[in-house]
């Protein structure tokens, strides 16, 4: 049945139509825009590769923000995915009241980019905020988190990490698909809980780990809320991520053409990384439901 090509295509048809109807035009338009100068008022003016040329050669802000974005992704993605996996693992224990904990851990993600998050995060990382109080308790020097270009990145990285709820929920769901009997077999084989986690759980949920890595990478490269709300890209552009720059260019400076060019560079970057990940997944992702291929 599964090699009925027509049926398979019928099932993806909604997606094909969706792409044609709602995605194709915007994509093509934005790609076309990236070769123009467009300020919303006057019709776009074709400028060829000028936008790309400019960002490659004459835009230190782009270079800076590209670096910031990559650094952010490098820090934030493993932290969020790792944390989510760890907590999901812990929350998968049978324990009284575990439901409440699950909800508690998800709350930050429900709050999303709300005012409360912004206000709170600024409170936490303010000079006299909770974080510094804790540091002081540990006998450490207080840190001007929001005002120090070397530390400001951490505030948004931690915010990103803190909102690990969705990844956690996905992991929780994935953990259910690991057959109990395998844990039993591993237990008999003498595996400790930790070993079971690393050698049974992790390999068997690699499809979902892979999913979370890819998605969080995509999200991290497009992260906007944190830097926008908490640090406003500063200080000294130390948290001026690409998404912020694209936003500024497109919707504050009205350089829609340039913004589109920036976006497509980001697209190429993320796409390249994703391609790399997909290629690597052959070697570490295990699909129980996949027929082997020739």
């Amino acid at each position, binding site marked *: 049945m599964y090699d009925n090509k027509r049926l398979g295509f019928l099932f993806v048809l909604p997606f094909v139509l969706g792409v044609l109807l709602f995605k194709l035009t915007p994509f093509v338009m934005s790609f076309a825009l990236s070769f123009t100068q467009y*300020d*919303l*008022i*006057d019709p776009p003016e074709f400028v060829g590769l000028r936008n790309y040329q400019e960002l490659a050669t004459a835009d230190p802000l782009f270079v800076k923000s590209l670096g910031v974005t990559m650094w952010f992704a490098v820090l934030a993605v493993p932290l969020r995915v790792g944390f989510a996996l760890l907590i999901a693992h812990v929350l998968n224990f049978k324990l009284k009241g575990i439901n409440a904990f699950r909800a508690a851990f998800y709350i930050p993600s429900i709050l999303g980019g709300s005012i409360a998050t912004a206000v709170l995060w*600024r*409170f936490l*990382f*303010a*000079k*006299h*905020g909770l974080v510094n109080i804790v540091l002081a308790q540990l006998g450490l020097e207080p840190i*001007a*988190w*929001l*005002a*120090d*270009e070397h530390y400001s990145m951490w505030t948004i990285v931690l915010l990103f990490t803190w909102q690990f709820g969705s990844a956690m929920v996905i992991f929780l769901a994935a953990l259910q698909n690991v057959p109990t009997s395998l844990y039993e077999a591993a237990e008999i084989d003498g595996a400790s809980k930790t070993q079971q986690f690393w050698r049974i759980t992790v390999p068997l949920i690699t499809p979902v780990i892979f999913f979370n890595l890819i998605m969080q990478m995509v999200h991290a490269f497009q992260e906007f809320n944190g830097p926008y709300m*908490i*640090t*406003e890209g*500063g*200080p*000294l*552009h130390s948290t001026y991520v690409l998404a912020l720059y694209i936003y*500024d260019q497109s*919707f*504050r*400076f*009205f*350089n829609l053409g340039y913004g589109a060019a920036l976006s497509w560079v980001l697209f190429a970057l993320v796409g390249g990384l994703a391609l790399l990940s997909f290629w690597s997944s052959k070697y570490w992702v295990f699909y129980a439901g996949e027929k082997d291929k020739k």
Partner: protein
Amino acid sequence: APWVHAQGSRTLRFAWWGGAARHSATLAALRLFEQRHPGVRVKAEYMGFNGYLERLTTQIAGRAEPDLMQINWAWLAMFSKRGNGFADLNAQQSVLQLDQFGADDLAYGQVQGKLNALPLSFSARVMLWNESAFRRAGLALPRNWDELFAAGPAFRRALGDGAFPLDGELYDMMLLAQTWVQQRHGTPYVDPLNRRIAMNEAAALDWVRTYRRLVNEHVCTPLPLRASLGGAEKPTEQQPDWVKGRWAGNYTWDALIGLRASTLPPSEKLALGAFPTLPGALDSGLFGRPTLMYAVGRSSPQPELAARLMNFLLCDPEAAKILGRTRGLPSARSSLAVLQASGGLPPLELAAHDQIQAQRLAGRLRRPAPLFEHARFLKFMREVFETVAYGKTSDLDAARRLVNEGQALLQRL
């Protein structure tokens, strides 16, 4: 055809942003307008400030903007570079009481000869002092630059390191410093009439130095400090130090006086300060522009009706009564008169208004360059001053950047 026009020609779309008071007052005024114009329905598209510009931008680009909209003065330069971004109100002179506005007021809404927008109110910079705090420091309110600069060390001595006579975010302090330069060199940073930087390198250097002096002499709260306290752009009234009276002043828009006062305990008394002026200054250096403006959409199918609504909101005495101060003290003379007659205006704000009007009437308030508050340009200026504030650049380098890069940037906007 877009939905906007499909709803019959007697529906007017009117967009504004604001807070609770503004919303309910405006809605009431609109009801009155509808009563007066049977068959006309005004569709109120209002919201908070957050996202307003994004939506408006999208709508304008999609030619689906409201018939009447509330805008910022600075947006004129972005949406209407050649005066074609909004409907030309000159065509609606018959329904607009332009005579209620001063020539200067009208000029703010003019782009290349086209009247794109009318001002609702005018706002400029004032010195707002916390009298009680100064009393605690044992100081008198500063009346001129020297006293202002002197207040810094005095405050530190009297109340400690964390106390400052003046607070303001980076932009506020840039403007304050510019005021000094303008009084001294007689020119603002950007030429109001031509696309060029008006300051020479020496003036720019003074600008940077004045800013640095404000910080170094403990007059104003340094940028890194503000940032470390929870964000460089956190408004003054949200600063615990302001609420507790440890930061004793604010250089800000007169329109914000009420907001700044709102978190202060009753024990703290605010006062309007004298505007510091260098002896022999040609120009007050005061920075002011319309707070809000109304514009009619360029693709509006009923510009006349929209203009009528605009006129009603700006000049109608009854509307003025209903709207009150929700959009500042009106620029339209008749409306202002109505408010003044009905009394109850807070004295501090009235005083500020008078202070500013006095400068305007004396011709000492120069209209700023339209591009000065362009987002891209603002970002550039902030960038330079941020590097100054964080000590990442020499004053001279900063001044050079301001002149050279600023010049280049202006050409491209």
